């Protein structure tokens, strides 16, 4: 019996001693990397841009691509590399023709994560080439590697910017704008909304709900008035394929 008690005491002593071992915290190993932001509320994996909603004489526009860092922020600026991976392929945007090339002196200052920052709104400058009146071109982007950053989260290191001068269905039309302007979408309808409300920021954030209601009611009223006006030869307003424009 005494041997059993002795064994129990030895066991408790060993366990008590082991359990007192100093506990050290896991430390993060800094490994700076970059990836494209991917969020339901900001940007997903692509942006569709169009000059359609801009004045006819506007020849340049800026698409902001959100880039996030991994690792600690630093107290110095850190250049990063952005590459077009579809250059030369069919439907690819051409640097200098459809967008300002990344090695252009105008752009190099923007290819930098500022000191102390963990994100960058990269301004991709698209150019209104006449060919965009008839086609849409793609800029397939990839995070490159340099001495400061490696590509980060693998599935979010590729990003697509599409641009055209034709009407483009906003990426959130079916999940958001349809509740304001009705489920159907077409270029004539899009132009009618812009012309009658002045609103064109379809890729911006969500609107205050009563402001959205205001826009929706206004275009409905304007369409009623348009279709009731005998001076409008194309009434009721239609898309090119004959689909009647509605907002309900």
């Amino acid at each position: 019996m005494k041997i059993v008690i002795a064994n129990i005491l030895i066991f408790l002593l060993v366990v008590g001693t082991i359990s007192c071992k100093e506990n050290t915290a896991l430390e993060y190993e800094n490994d700076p990397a970059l990836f494209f932001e991917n969020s339901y509320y900001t940007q997903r994996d692509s942006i569709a841009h169009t000059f359609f909603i801009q004045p006819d004489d506007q020849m340049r526009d800026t698409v902001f691509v959100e880039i996030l860092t991994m690792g600690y922020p630093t107290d110095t600026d850190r250049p990063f590399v952005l590459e077009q991976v579809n250059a030369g392929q069919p439907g690819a945007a051409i640097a200098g023709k459809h967008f300002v090339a990344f090695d252009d002196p105008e752009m190099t200052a923007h290819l930098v994560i500022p000191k102390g920052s963990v994100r960058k709104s990269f301004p991709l400058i698209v150019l209104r080439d006449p060919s965009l009146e008839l086609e849409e071109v793609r800029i397939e982007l990839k995070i490159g590697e340099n001495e400061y950053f490696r590509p980060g989260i693998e599935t979010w290191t590729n990003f697509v910017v599409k641009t055209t001068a034709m009407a483009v269905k906003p990426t959130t039309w079916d999940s958001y704008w349809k509740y304001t302007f009705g489920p159907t979408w077409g270029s004539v309808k899009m132009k009618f909304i812009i012309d009658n409300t002045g609103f064109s920021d379809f890729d911006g954030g969500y609107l205050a709900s009563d402001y959205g209601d205001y826009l929706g009611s206004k275009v409905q009223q304007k369409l009623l008035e348009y279709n009731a006006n005998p001076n409008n030869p194309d009434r009721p307003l239609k898309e090119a394929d004959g689909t009647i424009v509605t907002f309900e």
Partner: protein
Amino acid sequence: MKLKNILIGLGLLALFQGTQSCIDDRGNYDYMDKDVLLPVTISGFEDTTVVIRSTLNITPVLENMDDESRYIHLWYAAPSMTAGFAPQRDTLSLKKELSFDVTYESGTYNLVYELRDPKLDIYVRKQVLMTVQSDVSTGWYVMKEENGETDIDYIAMDGDKIENLITSFGQQRLKGKPIKMVYQSSRYTPSVQNPDGTTTNLVNKKAFHVFSDQDIKIFNADNMDLFYNYEDYFYEVPEKCQPQNCGIISTDFYAINAGKVYSIYGMSSNSGMLGFAKPGMYEVHPDMVMSYYGVMLFDKTTSTFYNTSSSGSSMNLFSEDANGGISPTNMDVDMIHMLPRYESVPSTAFAVMRNKNRDECYVFDISYSMSDYPFVDIDTIPVHCEMPDAQVMGTSLYASCIYYAKKESDGDVLKVYKNVKIDNRESELKRFPGEEIVYIVNLTSSYNTPEDEKFNHLVVLTNSDSGWKLYRFNVIGQTPEIEPEPVVVYSGTGKAGYVMLRN
């Protein structure tokens, strides 16, 4: 070595381990009673009630002080209840004596006095409940016109009166003559501009929506601060300024301007502003009947009853009668008046209508619930009845009747049209010599009014050369009849046009 010695050795080792594990424990202190460290006691004030725009003076009584000059005094207040955000502390004074000009909105606040010993960095405090009341609260709001402008005379439930409420609070009167005002008891969320140009969305405000025939203003119902003028009340200011009606039910607000219908859906975020009118080529009659699902209106251009909701953008037709009753669409009648009775689900109302093609008028008994067929009964008014020609009408909450004003040479006469299928339906209730009846309404006390203060009154608003008068007559049971003498009469200057009961 004997087993006994081994056991003793192990026991000592365990004892040593238990002892050394406490060496670095710095959690043991000497404890002193707080009354020894800071023996000061605070008294001299308790829970209090103050009125907006008054001054609250408090001098706390401090006992067991050593050297009063070395202590730091702090008075602050914070809302006692908030929803959706943390209460913000508001510093009122850094002196011992509090002199606070009450600028808060009505509500309850925790009022705290704190006395800090800077040497020990400890403090004692006393907290009481401060209830802030507005001097504008439940009571009667008479909208009146003077010199082409609209103001409000306010009579509290106890009879105290504030004349010219708008100007007495330093605000500008509305242009034009009174149309209507409504009280929104909560959840008004106006967007106000800060001095630095930024805007702040206020939450859960009480508001007066005040409409004249040429203007609209929205006031804070606590302190009459201006939330909006007509020019900034709309996302897009209508070309024609012709306010005609407004109403609130639950948190949904409806307005009619120049025959167009506007709404604010209170269950989603909003700035308390009106958007674009409900789409349609219509022009509605100024009268409307609200329910918890929407509002019922009559389009004068197509002689059609419509309904719409605060959250929807469409003007909806009512269903046709399954039994072949008269259609509510493209009717051959014009609307004289639509008189709401009980607004809920369903809502009830009478509509007095005139035939477009022959000299015939009708009373439509209406039960409004969403888009269901709305007509319960349609009765032809005998030709000799004078009610359809009256300018001013009101109805009863309980009895099937319509009160109206009959003009006579020596002043208006209050009469009642009983909606029963007999020939002699009209009778006189009360004469008002030298006075013109401008508004008739049946109003009751709120459900939570003490039993001895409950009332069911027919309220008659009149004008004369000497100003306005408001008569409150007891309604006899649930009949159309009233007691001949008023329970109370209020009076004031100017030409009244509307009275609102806030209860």
